[in-house]
C-alpha cells in the first residue's frame, strides 16, 4: 500500500435551510477555503471526486451541476459516487493506489431542506419488497433501536446521555447546527416520532457541504508539514434484505475491525457517523471505544448533512488529531438502513 495522507479539510456551516443558496454556492466556499489554506489551485489536483444524492435534488444527473463549483477547464479527471462523500474519498484512495493520481479533491454536498427527507429515503430502498411500504428513515432506525433495547445491548439512559452529550460537545464545533443544551426532562417530554425514537433521538434536517484533499506521501509534504496519514481503510455491506440481518450486531463491522488489526491499535479519539442516539452506545461497545472521547464534534445529532456526514466524521477525526496530542484516530461512515454499510478509517498523526 502506498502511504496516503489527508492534508486539508473544510466544512460549510451546517444550515437548517440554505434557502436560495444552491448546491454550487454551498460547495464553492469550502473548496476555495481549502485551496487558499494550502496555497494551491485546481491545477494541483490530479483527481476530483464528489458524493451526493440525486434524489435530494429530484433530477437525474443533478450532481453534474456541482462541478460548476470548480474549475473544469482545461479538462479534469473526475468521478462521482451516489453515496456519502466518505466513499468518494475511498475511490480517491484507490486512484492514488493505482498510480493514476498523486493528489485528490473530494467534496460532498446535500440540501435536505427543500424536500421531505423521510419520503425521499423510502424511495431509495429495495423497490420490490420495501419501498412500496414507504418506511421512513426514523422507523427503520427504530427497528434496530428496539432490538438493541430489548436485548439489553444498550439502555434508554445511554440514549439520553448520548443526546445530552452531543449538544454539550457542539461547543467544539463552530459549524454545528444544534447548539442549545437540553436536560433529562426536555428529553423525556419529547414526543415520539417512531417509538422508541423521539425527535431528540434523531438528527436535524441539514443543508451544507464539505471538502477534503488527500495526497500521496511524495506530494503530502508539499502541502503541509503535518499530514495525517490514512493508515487503514475498510468498508463492507450487509444484505439489502433487512429481515435477514441480525440487527443486534454487525458481522461486517467485526470483519473490518479484524482487517484493520484493531487488536493492536490503541485509539485516542473517534468520530462515528451515528445518526440516531441508539447507534452511538451500540457502536462504542462493538468497536471497543468505551474509554476514549467519541464524537467530540457533537456528531450527526448536532448537524447531519446528507452525503457529507460520513466525510465529516473523517474530517473531524483529522482535525482532532491535528489540534490535540492524539496519535491514533478512528472515523466511521455509514450508509443504508440500520447501519447496513459501514466504513472504518484509521488515521495516524506522526509526532
Amino acid at each position: 500500500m502506498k502511504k496516503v495522507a489527508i492534508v486539508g479539510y473544510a466544512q460549510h456551516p451546517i444550515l437548517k435551510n440554505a434557502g436560495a443558496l444552491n448546491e454550487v454556492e454551498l460547495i464553492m466556499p469550502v473548496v476555495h477555503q481549502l485551496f487558499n489554506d494550502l496555497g494551491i489551485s485546481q491545477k494541483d489536483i490530479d483527481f476530483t471526486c464528489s458524493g451526493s444524492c440525486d434524489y435530494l435534488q429530484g433530477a437525474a444527473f443533478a450532481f453534474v451541476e456541482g462541478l460548476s463549483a470548480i474549475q473544469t477547464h482545461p479538462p479534469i479527471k473526475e468521478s462521482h459516487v451516489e453515496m456519502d462523500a466518505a466513499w468518494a474519498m475511498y475511490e480517491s484512495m484507490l486512484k492514488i493506489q493505482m498510480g493514476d493520481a498523486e493528489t485528490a479533491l473530494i467534496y460532498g454536498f446535500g440540501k435536505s431542506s427543500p424536500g421531505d427527507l423521510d419520503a425521499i429515503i423510502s424511495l431509495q430502498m429495495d423497490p420490490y419488497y420495501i419501498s412500496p411500504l414507504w418506511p421512513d428513515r426514523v422507523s427503520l432506525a427504530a427497528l434496530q433501536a428496539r432490538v438493541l433495547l430489548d436485548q439489553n445491548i444498550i439502555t434508554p439512559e445511554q440514549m439520553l446521555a448520548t443526546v445530552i452529550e452531543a449538544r454539550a460537545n457542539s461547543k467544539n464545533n463552530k459549524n454545528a447546527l444544534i447548539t442549545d443544551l437540553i436536560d433529562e426532562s426536555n428529553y423525556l417530554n419529547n414526543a415520539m416520532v417512531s417509538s422508541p425514537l423521539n425527535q431528540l433521538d434523531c438528527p436535524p434536517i441539514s443543508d451544507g457541504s464539505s471538502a477534503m484533499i488527500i495526497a500521496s506521501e511524495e506530494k503530502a509534504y508539499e502541502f503541509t508539514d503535518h499530514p495525517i496519514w490514512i493508515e487503514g481503510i475498510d468498508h463492507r455491506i450487509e444484505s439489502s434484505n433487512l429481515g435477514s440481518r441480525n440487527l443486534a450486531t454487525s458481522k461486517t463491522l467485526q470483519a473490518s475491525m479484524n482487517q484493520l488489526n484493531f487488536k493492536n491499535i490503541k485509539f485516542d479519539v473517534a468520530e462515528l457517523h451515528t445518526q440516531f442516539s441508539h447507534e452511538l452506545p451500540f457502536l462504542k461497545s462493538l468497536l471497543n471505544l468505551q474509554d476514549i472521547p467519541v464524537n467530540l464534534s457533537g456528531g450527526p445529532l448536532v448537524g447531519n448533512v446528507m452525503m457529507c456526514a460520513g466525510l465529516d466524521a473523517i474530517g473531524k477525526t483529522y482535525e482532532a488529531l491535528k489540534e490535540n496530542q492524539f496519535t491514533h484516530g478512528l472515523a466511521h461512515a455509514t450508509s443504508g438502513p440500520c447501519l447496513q454499510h459501514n466504513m472504518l478509517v484509521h488515521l495516524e498523526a506522526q509526532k
Partner: protein
Amino acid sequence: MSDSKDLLRAPFELAYNYKRSSGPVMSKFFEALGHQKILGTKSSAGKVFSPAAEFDPETNEPLKEMIEVGPGGVVESFSWIEDPKHHHLIKEPFAFALIKLDGADTSMLHMVTQCNEADLRIGSRVKANWSEIQEQRITDIKFFTLEQ
C-alpha cells in the same frame, strides 16, 4: 415581461415510467401473493427466506426451491407511529414491523395495525390481512393484525 399565456408549458412526471421484470424468483413470489399465498425460498441447508431471496447472503448459494410460509408469524421488532405522515399507507396509528412468518427463518418488513402500542411486543403473534384488490405487489398484504 411576457404575458403568462405566452409561457411554454410541458408536463413533468418524476417517475420510473418504464416496466421491468421482477425476475424468476420474485415473479413467483408476487404471483403467489396475487393468490393470497406467501412463499419463501429454501437453501440446501434448509434455511427459508421470506420474502423470497434470490440467493443466500451468507453462502451466495442461488435459491430456487420455493415453499409456502405464513400467513401467521411472530414480531421480531417494530417501530410504532402514533401520527402517520402523508406518505404512509395507513392513516391510523400503526407499526412498521419485522415479521418472521411461520416456516421462515428470516423476517419480512411490513405493517401491523388495529391495536395499541402497548398491545404489541417482540414475540407477539400476528397474521396477514389481504388487500381488497390483488396486484401482485408486496402491498397485496394490506397489513398484519394481532392473532386473537
